[in-house]
């Protein structure tokens, strides 16, 4: 395998990408009542011993939520954990169902976009 080249984080791109969907992200984080009713709609949650880390709300709060809260002050470790959440724990099947009507897949897709812009990408060969 080729060695991973050193990655430098560019806060400006993250900021501009977050600003693109600022209103949606803000509302999604605001409206989520942390009711956990979305859990059953995720097949990964149901098949993996109902592990809370596969809950749709957990996934979007800990990916786009941390990105939004930390803004540009994000480091590589956090981005890597977000990468794992966004690529390994979610397959973007868009079947998650939020009682409040939050578009969770859009949030996770946007988090993927931000990760991709920083070169932090899931390597399918190594998985």
């Amino acid at each position: 395998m080729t060695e991973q080249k050193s990655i430098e984080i560019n806060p400006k791109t993250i900021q501009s990408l977050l600003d693109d969907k600022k209103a949606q992200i803000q509302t999604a984080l605001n409206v989520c009542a942390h009711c956990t009713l979305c859990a059953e709609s995720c097949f990964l949650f149901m098949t993996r011993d109902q592990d809370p880390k596969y809950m749709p709300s957990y996934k979007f709060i800990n990916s786009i939520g941390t990105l939004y809260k930390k803004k540009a002050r994000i480091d590589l470790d956090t981005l890597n954990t977000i990468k794992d959440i966004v690529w390994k724990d979610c397959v973007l099947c868009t079947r998650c169902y939020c009682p409040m009507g939050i578009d969770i897949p859009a949030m996770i897709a946007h988090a993927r976009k931000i990760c991709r812009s920083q070169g932090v990408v899931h390597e399918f060969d190594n998985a």
Partner: protein
Amino acid sequence: MHQIYQFVGGPLVWFSLLVFIAGTIHQIHQFFTDFSKKKTIPQYQPPGFKKQPSIGWFSKNAITTRIALIKQWFSRENRIRNMAMFRATNVFGIHPVFSWATLIFHVCLVITPLFVLAHNLLLDEALGISLFSWSETLTDSMTVVLLMCGAYFLYRRFFVRRVRAITSFYDYVMLFIAVAPFLTGFMAYHQIYDYQTMVILHILAGELMLIAIPYTKFAHMIYFFLQRLCVASEYSFGKGNRTW
């Protein structure tokens, strides 16, 4: 003490009401302007495609078809399947306790303050108009039910694994703000602690909640209806679109 009561029960009430109404209007305005800035993708139309004339919602044919469908849906053969589907797909089937607790909690939360006798007396004194009021036993028991539902939510936040995973300190604060007016009101009504302090705390808690609604997690009061209305073909009038 009396001066504090005068201030808290006078200008502060109007201020919090103003913040609540203005914030609500602002949020609704934002929802329909900022969020709908979305490129619309032109729908694919096959060559030679002609739009069919609509049958009409209230034509005789449409109505008879609909009645037949409803009859079939509730027929004896379908009943068992319907029940299984309800248990497997409906929120009230999957989480019966939590769903009913939420429903009762929210209904009590909105309705109880409107029909309490003391509130209506104050309204009558201030404006000369008031809603009809329910008996004090009824509103009192509604408060108790609400407090019990709140306790159930707290229990869930503490002990259910999946809820713990996404719970932060903010959630506890929000739950407390939601329940505090009812707790203090209950204590004031039953004169459990010093009545004067309790009433002032009660008014303050109510105002805090009103101010908190538009700009915190309580915004789901406004956005629940707006967002549900935009989910395609679900609880929406006509064609729904995801605009957020």
